[in-house]
């Protein structure tokens, strides 16, 4: 997560961003080239849709391009970029949810055993059925390898919230993937509303599956 340099350009990420803000016409392109695969993976796994991912990533990178001079310098450039990309994806998902005529991706409801040679594809499809906030947390922590604290910074929420989103997301995946057989996958899939656990000092009544997130 610390600023990286590259054989093609010895400058680290922070230097590239500052150079871009100072008018270097190549610096931002180099920054994107350096991190594009990782950012793409985040966008693709968060949106669950190739075209949405491409649109969200383009919006995000253009925003970062324009706002580079406002980079605070209090986090790694990659964290900053991931934050912009994830928020762009979540913005799109929320707008999509507000337009019920555009359904969320559906996958075959039949149980997919873990020995399936296409497990990765099945898990990808199941992931797309989770509430967006849970999916984003799982993508960052379980797929991209972010520590919980870093994921919390990227998503702008408390660490406990990330733990809760990941735990609840894994439980839902367990049902969708057939690892918890006494639950109805359709019921889990239809729980479109997320509910985060409150912070350690928060309201325990927030722990329900029917509530609506309001504090993050």
């Amino acid at each position, binding site marked *: 997560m610390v600023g990286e340099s590259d054989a093609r350009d010895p400058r680290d990420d922070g230097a590239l961003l*500052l150079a*871009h*803000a100072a008018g270097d016409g190549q610096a931002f*392109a180099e920054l*994107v080239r350096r991190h*594009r*695969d990782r950012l*793409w993976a985040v966008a*693709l796994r968060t949106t669950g849709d*190739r075209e949405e991912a*491409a649109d969200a*990533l*383009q*919006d995000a*990178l*253009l*925003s*970062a391009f*324009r*706002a580079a*001079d*406002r*980079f*605070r*310098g*209090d986090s790694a450039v990659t964290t*900053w970029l991931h*934050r*912009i990309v994830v*928020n762009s994806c*979540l*913005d799109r998902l929320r*707008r999509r949810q*507000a337009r019920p005529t555009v359904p969320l991706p559906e996958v075959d409801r039949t149980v997919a055993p873990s020995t399936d040679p296409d*497990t*990765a594809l099945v*898990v990808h499809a199941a992931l797309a059925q989770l509430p967006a906030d849970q999916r984003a947390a799982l993508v960052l922590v*379980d*797929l991209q*390898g972010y520590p919980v604290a870093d994921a919390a910074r990227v998503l*702008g929420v408390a660490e406990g*919230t990330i733990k*809760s989103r990941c*735990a*609840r997301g*894994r*439980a839902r*995946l*367990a049902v969708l*993937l057939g*690892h918890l057989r*006494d*639950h109805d996958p359709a019921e889990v899939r239809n729980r479109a509303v997320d509910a985060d*656990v409150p912070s350690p000092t928060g309201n*325990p009544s927030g*722990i329900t*599956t029917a509530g*609506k997130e*309001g*504090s993050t």
Partner: protein
Amino acid sequence: MNGDVDLDRLADYIGGALDGTPDEARVAHLVATDPAWTRAHAALVAADAFVRADLAQLAGRSEPMPDDVVARLDAALAAEPRPPVKAHLSVLPGGLETAARPRWRRRTVVGVAAAVLVLGLGTVSLGPHLLGGAGDASDNAAGTSATAPTPATGGPEAASDAASAAVNASGSDYSPETLAVLGRSSTPVTPSGAAKSDARPNTLGAPAQPSARPTDVPEALRPLTEPIARAACIKALVTQYGGTASLLDYARYEGSPALIVLLDGARGVTGQKWVVAVGPTCGAGGVATDQRYSAPLG
């Protein structure tokens, strides 16, 4: 597992999200004493291990950016105008930059200050936290008027971002349909969709009629009443859509706390209005917009 066991709560417990909370002990007690919870706990722990293994398979799968997406992004970035170069740019701890402010912005700030001074009687203050010195307000219910507007507390940067916007806290619960009404009327709407008549754009050339009380702001949106945070939010939206903010309403969107922002001149098109509903983390990191809804109007 049976229907008496709360799967989310049990998942929180297993995932460590309840650590240090009073509920941790309560769930531990249930797991230890209630047979249904005991079975559910064992089943979910086992399933959790399978899910982690599944996710590890997906994580190990390479996802290089496709060539067509690379080309598309390269083209989009190449077409983007260079950002204006700021002289003596540096970033201070806490994110305050020391770049020289463009001359036009200094003029705007002076203009805002002058407008604040001349608004005078006939207005009451929403307080520095809600307005940041850029606007004014009155008590909707009582229709009273009293003191002069409060000067900016967020600095000229914060003041200039919302300088031309009317600020309201209507308490309305907007939907896409009522936001369309908002776009036509340029005033906040009631939950039933009828436009309120007690808020007008606070443009520099036209003293505003005030409209809201700080207490009307949903609690989750309180951080966005801070001038700097609000300015960061507006700036992020203007960066994405262009134009200027003409109306801010601390309200709700489909039940959730939301700041409603009406932009004029969006996408660089004179007269093009754009309405955006954003959540409490809008402006975080300088670029997040936390959007719930966005649509052009007209």
